[in-house]
């Protein structure tokens, strides 16, 4: 079985300034399950969307079954036998299963003729692949696992031989995920080729025949699953980067500033993202949370800072409770000394259309010192903004410039200046240097350590393992929503990598 189902040659794609796919080559053998693994934002979904004709590559060639095909739209891909199960389901929620399966493949302009055929075909597929679902059920009333099954049925109904699944287990419970894997095995046994995109190493090891690793838009390696290890894959995924060493003295941890007890958070679909997490954060220390992106770090930050409501658990800030399961208010938490640098500065941290000075007071605009009667004291706001620009070396030094016109690093400095200059007790920082140039990284790292040395408690989340190791005094590793281990910053990369992959986690131990 050395025939190729898919071959990609030199696929290149940019979205504006973002180079999502850089000269990608990929070979997928027929009748295998081929995993594509990489962190969030590595370019996996973009690559598959190109294969499915949803986007067009800027350059490159796609071969299906050995023939070069110009896939300009999903229709061409469908005709070529490619089916895709999208990460966010492409289903019409108030349609029935049958209507969704038929959409785009109705056979004739009057529905009735097609309906009976579709019913029969669905029944056959159900039997053949154990994909039972009631054809007359309305999608929005089905659980997520069944909705996904409908997506698979849609592809099979269109006679797909090559099935792409984009992060299929992200929304599933472990039991549903196991069921999905059995279905995939079944499909493989029937001769279908499956491409599985994921950032979860456990899934790759469990089900794939071959695995390709993507990092920052590049395809860095392809391995036979049997001949590789979780450790190797984790390293390939995260990558070895230039080590940024920061001068840092001993930490002198003081009293507990932030205490998190049994915190559980679910996302909007009801999937548990943070699972019974507990830890203490002391004054004068930096605690880093390591983990592959998507293992609950974001939700943890959001729950502590009052943006996302937790299901259960207790959080105390300086000895006083934060109502994380009820009405925790980010503005109020700021006044109580909890500053938050959000992971996504564009969507949460800044209003890009505002002037720099306006962003410099975002969230602190109620401060009496910025008020003059009923109106904002623009002079006071600009004076403060200009002081921060000096202190943080924000360029260009113009408080009246639109924030969108600053570079990523300088935007990040605007957010950091805003949060750090308020003299908080607890500083929560997500991805401090994402999309930030090297010069700014050094500056930001120094500022974070200065905060620690002033006796602030710092909680740091980053997907950059090097950053975590360089800055943290203690490292907590998160996997599948749980804290699966605590390490000193001098722990080896391999050791941390295994923890991040969940290999030593409680879930793996149970299996």
């Amino acid at each position, binding site marked *: 079985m050395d025939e190729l189902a898919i071959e990609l040659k030199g696929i290149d794609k940019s*979205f504006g300034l973002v180079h999502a796919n850089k000269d990608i080559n990929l070979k997928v053998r027929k009748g295998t399950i081929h995993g594509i693994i990489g962190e969030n934002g590595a370019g996996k979904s973009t690559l598959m969307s190109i294969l*499915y004709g*949803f*986007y067009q590559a800027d350059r490159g060639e796609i071969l299906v079954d050995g023939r070069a095909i110009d896939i300009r*739209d*999903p*229709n061409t*891909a*469908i005709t070529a036998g490619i089916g*895709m199960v*999208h990460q*966010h389901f*492409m*289903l*019409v*929620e*108030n*349609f029935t299963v049958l*209507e*969704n399966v*038929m*959409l*785009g*493949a*109705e056979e*004739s*302009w*009057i*529905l*009735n003729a*097609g309906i009976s055929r579709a019913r029969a075909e669905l029944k056959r597929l159900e039997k053949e692949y154990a994909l039972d679902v009631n054809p007359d059920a309305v999608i929005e009333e089905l659980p997520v696992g069944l909705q996904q099954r409908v997506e698979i049925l*849609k592809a099979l109904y269109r006679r797909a031989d090559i099935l792409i699944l984009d992060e299929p287990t992200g929304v599933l419970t472990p039991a549903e995920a196991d069921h999905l894997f059995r279905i995939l095995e079944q499909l493989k046994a029937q001769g279908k080729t499956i491409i599985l995109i994921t950032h979860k190493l456990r899934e790759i090891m469990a089900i794939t025949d071959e695995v390709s690793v993507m990092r920052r838009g590049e395809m860095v390696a392809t391995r036979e699953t049997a001949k590789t290890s979780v450790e190797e894959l984790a390293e390939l995924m995260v990558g070895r980067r230039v080590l940024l060493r920061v001068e840092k003295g001993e930490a002198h941890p003081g009293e507990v500033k932030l205490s998190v007890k049994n915190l559980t958070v679910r996302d909007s679909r009801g999937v548990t993202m943070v699972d019974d997490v507990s830890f203490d954060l002391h004054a004068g220390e930096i605690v880093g949370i390591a983990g592959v992106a998507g293992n609950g770090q974001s939700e943890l930050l959001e729950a502590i800072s009052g943006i996302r409501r937790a299901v259960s658990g207790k959080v105390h800030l300086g000895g006083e409770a934060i109502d994380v399961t009820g009405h925790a208010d980010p503005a109020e938490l700021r006044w109580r000394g909890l500053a938050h640098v959000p992971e996504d500065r564009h969507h949460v941290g800044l209003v890009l259309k505002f002037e720099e000075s306006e962003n410099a007071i975002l969230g602190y605009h109620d401060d009496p010192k910025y008020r003059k009667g009923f109106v904002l004291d623009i002079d006071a706001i600009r004076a403060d903004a200009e002081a921060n620009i000096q202190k943080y070396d924000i360029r260009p030094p113009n408080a009246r410039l639109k924030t969108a016109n600053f570079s990523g690093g300088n935007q990040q400095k605007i957010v950091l200046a805003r949060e750090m200059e308020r003299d908080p007790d607890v500083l929560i920082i997500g991805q401090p240097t994402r999309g930030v140039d090297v010069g700014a990284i050094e500056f930001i790292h120094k500022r974070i350590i200065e905060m620690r040395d002033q006796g602030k408690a710092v909680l740091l989340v980053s997907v950059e393992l090097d950053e975590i190791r360089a800055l943290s005094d203690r490292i907590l590793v998160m996997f599948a929503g749980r804290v699966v281990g605590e390490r000193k910053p001098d722990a080896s990369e391999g050791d941390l990598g295994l923890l991040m992959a969940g290999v030593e986690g409680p879930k793996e131990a149970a299996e």
Partner: protein
Amino acid sequence: MDYLQLFLELAQSTVRLSTPLILAALAGLFTERAGVFDIGLEGKMLGGAFAAGCVAFVAQSAMAGLLAAVVVSVLLSLVHGYASITQRGNQIVSGVAINFIVAGSTVILGEAWFRQGGRTPALSEGARFQVIDLPFAEELRGIPLLGPIYADLISGHQALTYIAFLMVPASWWILYRTRFGLRLRAVGENPGAVDTAGISVIWMRYRAVICCGILCGIAGAYLSLAANAGWTKGMTAGKGYIALAALIFAKWRPVPVMFACLLFGFLDAFAIRYQSTPLPLIGKVPVQLMQALPYILTVILLAGFIGKAIPPKAGGVPYVKER
């Protein structure tokens, strides 16, 4: 028999007044189920009515007038489609713009061409749609109850009225029983699903917008060629908005659309019939209040009496492939 006569009179004018509402509301149904909101029903109807009035007068033919109304209304729809589908503009702004452009330009053109002060020349019998008497209407009149209902209520309307009421089941069938309808409803709920199924979202939405134009054109032709003998300025008088209200009231479903339009038509008929007659218990009601009644009721009904009206999920949102 007095009450029957009264009922028949009211019912017949209800049907007459509902006809343009039904056509316009169904027009809105097609685009809005496809995810393109259209506040410009009013403008398209008015433009259609104007074109019908002009062409019917010049050609002395009602059919030519109808055709002209449909053409003009479809062209206006395509403008709305280009702005909101291709250029991904704001659908409300585009619709409002069309309403204003039509309201102004029809007056200017009408004055320039006919010089009759905001109207097209009165149409002769031959250039208008004629009342159709259904077979045996007179012979069956003698049958108690059913006879007069048949003769006075069901028979005796213009062709466009019958078309409007036939469009109700036809729209239902198109929407729920054809491939076109399935795709149209899907594109208004989740265009991503349509796109990934290999169907062009843009082309689907354009076709829906064209359907809207055709129906609005017929509604306009009804106003100037059937309900009246020519076009007068602003003759739609808010009917496009009432049709939108009926559409929401009916939760974007064809058969309830018909009933909602009949209700609004009835209120209108009632207001006209009783505007100077003293009512029992209340006495004489000011004309203005009677005329405002349909609108007052619209607000009350929409404000709380219909439960939650959930619009098509992708309504008003231009389709952009996510990134």
